């Protein structure tokens, strides 16, 4: 099997996870104009909760659900308790706030769950599938990763485009004041947006944990690449987030495979700068270049 094909498959799976992370960031950005730098740390925390449940004899899939639902709850708590009070503060303050939350969670996790590096069990085998006599670098767990990210995206698309609730959420993000006049509970919609975003983040954590191992800062890299993907695609576009995340996955895989893994991040930087110099608001932005 050609090297290019292997790297492409690897890039696709990694890209799916970056896409999930980017999507989580974009959902929060669109709802509250905040870049949630604690997104990765929140996902790390929910993944630790899943491992904690598994350690205590909870079946795997139930632990999976524990992580996802604690993601929902954590997102709501963070929005209500920490982000809501600084809604009208300068944007940099919210950046520092989420950075503070990131540090806090990364310190809290080893206090609660122990600081040693842990392995996280995958949902399915991570051994490459066999087709006839040849083995491909694509495992059942990779298939599950792709499938679950795709499923979440379809569900979110249906929610936002086809349901009344989704319409209300979009309206609340688009114009809070008018939405309020129309009887939409804007605050509640924003909380729900944060909840759903951190659910997607929690999923990304569960999917990447088997290959990265679990330690307090294990999601930092994923957050950076997810953020890069979101910026690449354009922060205002959910489609852009997915495309940007996938692009990051492919790019990192090719650069790592052909030029050496220590150049991965440099490759990411070069691609990001190249795209942003042509389109300063990302690939899928619909905004004008400069706002007067």
């Amino acid at each position, binding site marked *: 099997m050609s090297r290019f094909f292997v790297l492409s498959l690897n890039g696709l799976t990694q890209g799916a996870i970056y896409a999930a992370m980017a999507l989580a960031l974009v959902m929060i950005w669109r709802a509250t104009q905040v870049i949630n730098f604690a997104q990765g740390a929140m996902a790390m925390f929910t993944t630790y909760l899943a491992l904690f449940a598994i350690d205590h004899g909870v079946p795997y899939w139930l632990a999976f659900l524990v992580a996802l639902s604690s993601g929902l709850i954590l997102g709501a708590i963070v929005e209500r308790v920490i982000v809501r*009070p600084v809604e009208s503060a300068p944007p940099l303050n919210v950046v520092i706030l989420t950075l503070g939350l990131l540090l*806090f969670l990364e310190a809290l996790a*080893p*206090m609660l769950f122990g600081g040693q590096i842990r392995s996280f069990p995958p949902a399915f085998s991570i051994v490459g599938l066999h087709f006839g006599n040849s083995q491909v670098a694509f495992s059942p767990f990779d298939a599950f990763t792709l499938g679950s990210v795709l499923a979440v995206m379809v569900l979110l698309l249906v929610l936002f485009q086809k349901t009344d609730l989704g319409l209300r959420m979009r309206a609340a993000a688009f114009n809070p004041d008018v939405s309020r006049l129309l009887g939409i509970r804007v605050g509640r919609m924003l909380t729900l947006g944060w909840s759903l975003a951190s659910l997607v983040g929690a999923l990304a954590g569960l999917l990447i944990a088997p290959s990265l191992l679990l330690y307090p800062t294990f999601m930092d890299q994923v957050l950076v690449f997810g953020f890069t993907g979101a910026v690449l695609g354009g922060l205002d576009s959910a489609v852009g987030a997915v495309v940007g995340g996938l692009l990051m996955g492919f790019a990192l895989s090719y650069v790592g495979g052909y030029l050496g893994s220590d150049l991965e*991040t440099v490759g990411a930087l070069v691609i990001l700068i190249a795209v942003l110099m042509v389109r300063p*608001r990302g690939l899928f932005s619909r905004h004008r270049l400069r706002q007067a």
Partner: protein
Amino acid sequence: MVAVHSRLDRLASRTLGGHLLLALGAAVLLLLLSTQIGAYDNYNLTAVAIFAVAAAGLNLLTGLNGQLSLGHGALMAIGAYTASLLLKDHELPVVLVLLLSVLSTGLIGIVFGYAAARLRGPYLAGATLTLAVALPQVATRYKSIFGGESGLTVPPTTPPAWLGPDFPPERWLAWIAVAAVVVTFVLLANLLRSSAGRAFRAVRDNEAAAALAGIDVARTQVLAFVISAACAGLAGALFAYWSGVTAPAGFGVTLSLQLVTAIVIGGLGSLAGAVWGSLVLVFVPSLTSGMASTLNVPSAIANNLPLAIYGGILVIAMLVAPHGIQGTLTRILTIGRARWGHTPAGGQKGVVDWDDPASDP
């Protein structure tokens, strides 16, 4: 018109004179302080000075010009590697090393500055964050030049002979750092009071209005970036002397984020804010880790408590003091003055100008 001009001229000379006097006073105080404290405290004093130089530069870019950089640690790395490479085979005077580091970082800052001037808000943040992640990797990759993971060792600066044979080297480094911070602050304070400083603020507040007023927006942004990069380069070179080794691990994303934290906690847009923020960066972790080690708790908790407290402080500080330490102090002062019947010169009663450089040292 003539009267206005001469008054402005007088004001300018007063400003410069005031800044110089203040700087001289601060320098003398700090040098005296450094002779009274031990080696460890001199080490901390140097760290505060280094962070203050870098944070002041970042505050100019972010607080005054509105460009958010999450990658200033990478610019510090450029300064640090310049200094380390210069000192690899040659023995050079400190001043020359510092100046060349400032120059090289400033030149690279021009390239980054042009790219940054096209980007806004979170897009600039994303690009600079990626820079912070990527640049240390270059050092890891090109081992023969940058020494790879283990980095380059930096020989310590020896105190000059006229200070006597027993002069402690850490105090000498503290003096160098204090001199660097004082010179940087005087230059920045005057720049902020000049037309360039007003242009920075105008561009931050409203690009379209600034452009209409005849300000070249892109050029102003590049200039702010270059000056800011030069400060980071100076801080990086001092950092190389301070730590004795320049390695990629020292310039990770954490350093960049620490600098942003410093200016927001200290106070955006003011030089004093950079000092407050640097004090927080250096002393809060050492205080909390000292505190945690005295507690009788399992090591898993004691080791992580300082970070948890630090994160908690960031969150709480943003909730209770959104304008940082300097902003809060200014507000308290203004309220006090209003109550006692003194209106601050040039300002309206009860109105707080967060960017008023009059509150700078």
